[in-house]
């Protein structure tokens, strides 16, 4: 089976973001970018499935500008077989991303799509569910354990009260949670090898999709800041403050 893994280039999770002074967005010029951490987990899971002979080919896909090739090379270094960049110079909403991915998944005749449960920039947590809906496939979201056998998936999901296990047939869309696996590091020889693996560039406009605008971003502003507090010297002072000053006990 072929596995499509969708990956996204985002601001590195350890970078403290800066909001543009005109509130049109977040500063991305000269900022360190990385692969979305949940997507690294998705790649890792695909590679492990291939190592267990559960997969034939792993195709990493991203949608973005030319700089996103770097993210795809990283995916190739981690073990993806080939990569596709759907080139576009604008930001799409989750629904339009799902529509583009649907097109790629159809073309590649994939039977499993693995992707992170959310990207750490938009925090939307929508695209996998939307893709599953468009493909009319079952979905397993927030997955922390995945077993594939005889074209069936058994997926354990992280839900608010604990864990839930579902079974579903392939093809399916699976979104990965943090504890699914510990992603490996790209070794130097693998980084070198990744440079020779195929990376196709497809112009988004050539896909023949009609992508209308669904959401308009009005502004991006800093969150209300908390006023700095005080340090107390002892437990009894803390208790006093909580009781009589903050009145929360």
């Amino acid at each position, binding site marked *: 089976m072929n596995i499509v893994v969708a990956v996204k280039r985002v601001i590195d999770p350890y970078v*403290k973001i800066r909001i543009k002074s005109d509130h049109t967005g977040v500063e991305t010029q000269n900022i360190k970018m990385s692969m979305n951490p949940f997507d690294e987990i998705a790649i890792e899971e695909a590679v492990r499935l291939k190592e267990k002979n559960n997969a034939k080919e792993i195709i990493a896909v991203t949608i973005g500008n030319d700089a996103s090739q770097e993210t795809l090379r990283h995916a190739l270094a981690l073990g993806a077989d080939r990569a596709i960049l759907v080139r576009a110079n604008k930001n799409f909403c989750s629904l339009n991303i799902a529509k583009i991915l649907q097109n790629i998944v159809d073309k590649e005749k994939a039977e499993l799509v693995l992707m992170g449960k959310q990207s750490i920039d*938009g925090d939307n947590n929508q695209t996998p569910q939307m893709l599953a809906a468009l493909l009319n496939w079952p979905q397993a979201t927030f997955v922390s354990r995945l077993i594939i056998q005889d074209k069936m998936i*058994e997926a354990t999901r992280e839900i608010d009260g604990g864990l839930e296990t579902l079974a579903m047939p392939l093809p399916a869309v699976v979104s990965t949670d943090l504890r699914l696996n510990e992603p490996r590091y790209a070794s130097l020889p693998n980084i070198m090898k990744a440079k020779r693996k195929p990376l196709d560039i497809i112009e988004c406009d050539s896909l023949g999709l009609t992508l209308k605008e669904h959401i*308009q971003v009005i502004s991006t*502003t800093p969150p209300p800041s908390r006023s700095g507090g005080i*340090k107390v010297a002892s437990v009894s002072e803390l208790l006093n403050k909580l009781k009589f000053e903050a009145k929360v006990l």
Partner: protein
Amino acid sequence: MSTLVIVEHDNQSMHPATRNTLSAALELKQNVVLLVAGYQCQAVAEQAAAIAGVHAVWLVDNVAYEHQLAENMAQLIISVADSFTSILAPASTFGKNILPRVAAKLDVAQVSDVSRVLDKDTFEHPIYAGNAIETVKTLDAIKVLTIRTTAFDSVTDSQSPCCVERIDKSIHESSTKFVKHELSKSERPDLGSAKIVVSGGRGLQSAEKFKLIEELADALGAAVGASRAAVDAGFVPNDYQVGQTGKIVAPTLYIAVGISGAVQHLAGMKDSKVIVAINKDEEAPIFQIANYGLVGDLFELVPEFIQQLKANG
């Protein structure tokens, strides 16, 4: 036109998140219909009908909805979507799982984690782990929204129950099957809705020593939370995790013990009313947002805290 709220429940009782979601729904100033889909869940519908502001409750009682699988739930919601201009669910794992599937089938966008309703199609929601607030306008006819429950008050008032309408819908049941649940058992208040939360981090050192956090929580009648570091180290199960990738809480009092205050964690608790930090590292980022900070060894301070709470009755 009306607003539809998808009720989160376990077939016996309504999840408190529904009351916060209703609060957001009422701000849209339309009739609000609550949809209770489940199996043998009549009691939930009765609970829902009695909350102030609810116009009607639709009850769909069918074994196909027992575990509220996204595929079946989405199909049901789409079949009734025509009557509504907004469809809301809490931004819990329940709502996040189902609603984007609904939105895509309706060919409309979704706004996730709405923290403020500006008007019927303009909303605020946090992005970048809560480090920015984005205001967006949806251009679609139907607005699909998941609601950040901690940003809206819970509707606790009641009314004389509105009508509960039973609906029968035959659906094409999904091939997805429920296998099992492994729920964490807890006698304590629910983390998402507790007034006081006590959280422990890596500083607790072991699962054994983490019990100290539980003792402090019990002395305060609080829920227990944890940082990602504590969960990854195996001190507590993952559903204790507070943060961008865990639960978002906003209690009256949040006590962070042995937690440095990584961005990831702060995203889950920085809207708490009063934050207390207990940490031995004076430079820990948590002190920059804590109202009250106590610097010192948690293994001395926490037992002292418990002792003084008990002494004061």
